[in-house]
């Protein structure tokens, strides 16, 4: 019996998927959702007839299998870095706010800047990082799982 990835609190891993012109019209993601019975959340997608770049989130336990399957189907997989904001350092100036394309950074009602990690698309964007005057925003590797190594190696090896 395959494990049920839909239940409980899931540790998710973010993956950056690159589809070439040849495979962009194939329903690869839907196939894998069915095959592994695991959620694959699409966070952002930039797709046209020439190919596509998709930022997706998969459960950590299924990540290795999914990455393997994706690569078998010709998808280039890499691990994007995540953005972290150090609330201790942040002075709530707002320099980052208007730069964010997905409104992951905003002012709350007390004029404090709050960062919504879920909404942030990560290192593929990074628009805010070099705009922070006190360097409170950092790009960090996703390290809490084993995939970091294999995925990074795979990405290097194939590109």
């Amino acid at each position, binding site marked *: 019996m395959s494990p049920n990835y839909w239940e409980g609190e899931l540790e998710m891993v973010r993956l950056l998927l690159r589809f070439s012109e040849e495979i962009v019209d194939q329903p690869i993601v839907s196939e894998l959702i069915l095959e592994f019975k695991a959620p694959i959340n699409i966070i952002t997608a930039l797709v046209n007839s020439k190919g596509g770049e998709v930022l997706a989130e998969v459960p950590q336990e299924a990540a290795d299998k999914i990455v393997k399957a994706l690569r078998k189907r010709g998808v280039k997989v890499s691990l994007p870095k995540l953005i972290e904001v150090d609330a201790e350092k942040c*002075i*709530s*100036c*707002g*320099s*980052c*706010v*208007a*730069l964010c394309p997905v409104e992951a950074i905003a*002012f709350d009602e*007390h*004029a*404090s*800047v709050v960062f919504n990690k879920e909404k942030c698309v990560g290192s593929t964007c990074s*628009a805010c990082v*070099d*705009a922070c*005057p*006190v*360097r409170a925003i950092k790009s960090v590797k996703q390290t809490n799982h084993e995939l970091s190594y294999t995925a990074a190696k795979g990405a290097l090896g194939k590109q």
Partner: protein
Amino acid sequence: MGELKLKPQKNTRTIEEINAKIRKGDAQVLTAEEMKKLVESSSIEVAFKEVDVVTTGTFGAMCSSGAVINLGHSDPPIKIDKAWMNDVPVCHPGAAVDLYIGATAMSETQAYEYGGGHLIEDLVKGKEVELRATAYGTDCYPRNSIRTNLTKDDLNQFYLLNFRNGYQRYNCAVNSRDETIYTYMGKLLPKMRNATYSGAGELNPLMNDPDYETIGIGTRIFLGGAQGYIIGEGTQHEAKSQNGTLMVRGDAKKMSPEFLRGASFTRYGTTLYVGLGVPIPILNEGLAKKTAIRDEEIFTNVVDYGVPRRNRPKLAKVSYKELKSGAITVGDKKIRVSSLSSLKMARQIATTLKKWIEEGTFFLTAPVERLPLDTTFKPMKQTETTSFVKNVMQMAVTCKETEEVRTIAERIVSKSVNHIVAVDNAGKLIGIVTSWDVTRAMAQGKTQLADIMTRRVFTAKPDEPLEMASKRMAEHNISALPVINDEKKVLGIVTSEDVAKLLGRRT
């Protein structure tokens, strides 16, 4: 009761009266934001009667900031010539061991990321910093060099001495260019996709007393988390255009790193965020009215920082209310805007100052001289003529896309140039070919110009400063830029050779 009735209604109060109330613990203090609400919900008369002091605050990047330090003498003594602290060059404007740390001086090993602002923050935090200094040696100061580690406790004096702080209001910046630019107004996306502004608007100190009735030399203020003083108007101060500024001083040993933060503006440089708050004594109804000023009454210009000239184009007028709302409108374009200064910190400063006064630890001072109302901010007098692209550009040798490589080769030889600019029938730019492209094409047996010309061409505008064109050529490793107007019509060409001749001669 009868006696009271006979007393005339008093419509002024003095700083001495306010200080007496502070001493007794019953001075009425409101932050500037609270004052506006009170006036709105009651009246100026009521606000004047009820409020003794209004506190203001601002927290922003203030580049003309720095600290004077005195190191004491070493044995044998040294008359410092050049000095560095944590690799940041520190000036030595005075005698042997007095130094000035400028907020914008950048570390020689970590340029852009660490500078005078960070150094001041580290010292304020109590961190140890490394001092290196060299000297030429004199009979009385024989030493040639020194290296030592210091904290603020080892310094005799450590004074913040800022020559321009607390701008009354500031520009809102956008960028019309096709590329992202990094400025002292932060990161500006291409084609006006974002805007930045600075300043606390209705919480700003000078905006709440725009005629400087109570502000001048000797006014005690909140500076960097401690008590400091205004020592005069800041540089570039201009009252009549609502561009007043402050020169301030305070004991940095008593300050807090929360209100003094070193900062880095990517590809621009380092600076210091300074927290500053001024108490406004409500001496009369006029001041009650002035401190009721709202964001919607404070305007500033939207300025195009994409144009690297002194007179940058002003594109629109916006209020601080619009700025704080997160979006402004320029023409029919809605632009997302965010601040570089911190409203949250500005509020915290106004609130802290209010608390100090309520607790009786902060007393007001009357200025010995008010800030001037008549100074003007003049542009620099330039005795050398500045060069713009139009001053050095030459006639461009042009061609049509349909021509053959051979013809172009002949033209390169006959005109003795290295670049031929391809134009359409209307004279508009479509590409460029270099003598190198032509040589290679002939070697490869290519005959059609259309196959070899570069279509993505870097260009220059006639009114651009020459340095910008020179920088663009160096960045893209190219040796010439066609000069075009807004309609892409070719006006000429500027080559790196011509630029080097002119810029080289000047240095």
